């Protein structure tokens, strides 16, 4: 299969420009996602990694326009999906896209499924909402979908309730609902975190298969670098609401540039080596209210921090072909110019 490189001309499926998403605390808004820009090309799996609180889930909720009402808000930037800015759409227009063109799977399949309706009912609901078919057809299609995600005895399971299934099975049901209308983009928010490794391997395999068969793009949100290495084409590393590094998966694991990415990789125990001590990152992610407005947000925890790191805000810039990093260690321009740019 010919894979398109990001250099080739094709409108990206999703292009996010300078996205700012804020949460209201008291009277003020504080940004959980701060000027984030990236694109997702067609048929690509883009991984977003970062620790809890780095803004990865908030970003996906911004794309889906599912931020908690009155609290969370997209405060700037564009979310262009096939050329339409999703942040400008009305709720009704968004309803047509959600579940049809873009769908989402979550970490905990039990809380994402409604316990009082059968699997079949919930699956048919998606189909009836977005497609012009009869109930009978929807049921048959539902059974076929369950079969396609590897659920045994789909004609029985369709009449069962979520609690009757195991965690892996529930996640399969979630995936079948998400792909029911053949979306162009699937956002998977920690889809395997709650599962055992053997089941995780099954689900990752399934996602890869579906991605190829349906020609879809996936945004894979995870904290597990192993999962990223396993299925992603491109990787975005986030820290404290900003992208610190972006490149293809091979390059990232071969030569991570940002000190945060490097530490993250050294902090996980590896299977094929034995060392007494793992790398650690001192300190904590600054809270959303105390985010430094100037300078690098990682500076206070960074072992390579320089005096200018707290004064100059690093921008995400290409350091090598298709390898962007936001760190002053890799700047092309002089620091003085950057002060002016800010």
């Amino acid at each position: 299969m010919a894979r398109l490189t990001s250099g080739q001309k094709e409108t990206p499926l999703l292009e996010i420009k300078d996205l700012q998403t804020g949460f209201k605390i008291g009277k003020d808004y504080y940004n959980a996602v701060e000027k984030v820009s990236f694109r997702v090309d067609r048929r690509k799996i883009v991984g977003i990694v970062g620790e809890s609180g780095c803004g990865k889930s908030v970003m996906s909720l911004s794309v889906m326009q599912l931020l908690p009402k009155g609290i969370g808000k997209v405060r700037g930037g564009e979310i262009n999906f096939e050329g339409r800015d999703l942040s400008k759409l009305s709720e009704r227009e968004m309803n047509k896209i959600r579940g049809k063109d873009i769908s989402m799977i979550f970490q905990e399949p039990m809380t994402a499924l409604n316990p009082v309706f059968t699997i079949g009912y919930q699956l048919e609901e998606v189909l009836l909402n977005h497609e012009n078919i009869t109930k009978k057809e929807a049921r048959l299609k539902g059974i076929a979908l369950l079969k396609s995600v590897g659920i045994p005895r789909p004609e029985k399971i369709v009449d069962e309730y979520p609690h009757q299934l195991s965690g892996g099975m529930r996640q399969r049901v979630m995936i079948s609902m998400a792909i029911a209308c053949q979306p162009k983009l699937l956002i998977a928010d920690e889809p395997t975190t709650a599962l055992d490794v053997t089941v995780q391997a099954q689900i990752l395999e399934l996602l890869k298969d579906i991605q190829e068969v349906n020609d879809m793009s996936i945004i894979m949100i995870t904290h597990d670098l192993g999962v990223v290495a396993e299925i992603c084409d491109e990787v975005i590393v986030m820290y404290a609401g900003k992208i610190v590094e972006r490149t293809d998966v091979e390059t990232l694991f071969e030569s991570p540039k940002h000190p945060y990415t490097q530490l993250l990789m050294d902090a996980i125990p590896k299977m094929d080596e034995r060392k007494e001590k793992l790398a650690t990152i001192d300190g904590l992610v600054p809270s959303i209210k105390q985010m430094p407005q100037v300078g690098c947000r990682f500076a206070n925890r960074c072992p390579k921090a320089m005096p200018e790191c707290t004064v100059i805000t690093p921008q995400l810039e290409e350091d090598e072909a298709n390898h962007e990093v936001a760190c002053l260690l890799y700047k092309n321009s002089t620091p003085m110019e950057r002060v002016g740019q800010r």
Partner: protein
Amino acid sequence: MNITAASKGTQPKPIVEKETLLDIRNLKTYYPVKGGFLKRTIGHVKAVDDISFEIKKGETLGLVGESGCGKSTTGRTILRLLKPTDGQILFEGKDITAISGTELRRARQDFQMVFQDPYASLNPTQSVGDIISEPIRNYKKISKKELKSEVLDLLSRVGLPAEAYDKYGHEFSGGQRQRIGIARALALKPKLIIADEPVSALDVSVQSQVLNLLKELQDEFDLTYLFIAHDLSVVKHMSDRIGVMYLGNMVEIATNDSLYEEPLHPYTQALISAIPEADPKKRKKRIILEGDVPSPQNPPSGCPFHTRCPMAKEECSQIKPALKEVKPGHHVACILY
């Protein structure tokens, strides 16, 4: 053998000469299943079904397995938080399976637990000082001043500032809370610490801090760990020997290197193969197991793994293989060997 020298280097600690701290023999823990109109016991969940192993002094034994395999139940039964259905637990050669009352209370000084969820395992109405001093107050008669200095000592040992003493659990991050939990477990200078998924709720950067801390403390206080986790790379990092559990049974037990270099049981092979490695070049062909773990209430006959085993033979559904030593120090329960 010079112990101080051995505990420093990066080589795995020699385990041959050390004495046995914990000896588990044919341990069984069943949970009754009640049902029907009279709530009679209608069956049993065989959470731990006849397992035997030993832990030497100063050693870390890792226990891995998927959820529901009985690894936590094993840990809790050893602490006597659960009553074993059958079998023996020998701690320093003394049978603690049936002791109760004062005797059990006294014995419990020597084994402590670190829990998985650092949010649920700290009492929200107690200050950190109270939480850590509680075990000491329970077992020792010492003055308030001495108690406080002991607690402050523990706090600094686990890397927390002295100001933490008067604060409450909710004021700390997950990693710091886990440090409080570790300080509490250390308070009585126990010999054995059972750590049940101590890092699974933490972010990777914090996870590595806690793992490093546990290793440092082990050297410093000559602790023995039973380290329970589902993450195989974490278990490999921490353990000298590893036991693999499936449906309440120990299917393989071996030294760290031996287990990862040459896993013998088909389940261990699948488990190791399923771990996604942080290296995109190693996207390997995995052994993907079909289906889920069967219910422990109604386990399959014969080998508990035969329903999912890619190498199952006909006799596997009839014969339940016993754990036997195939190579020195490498035990496996499978008829292939």
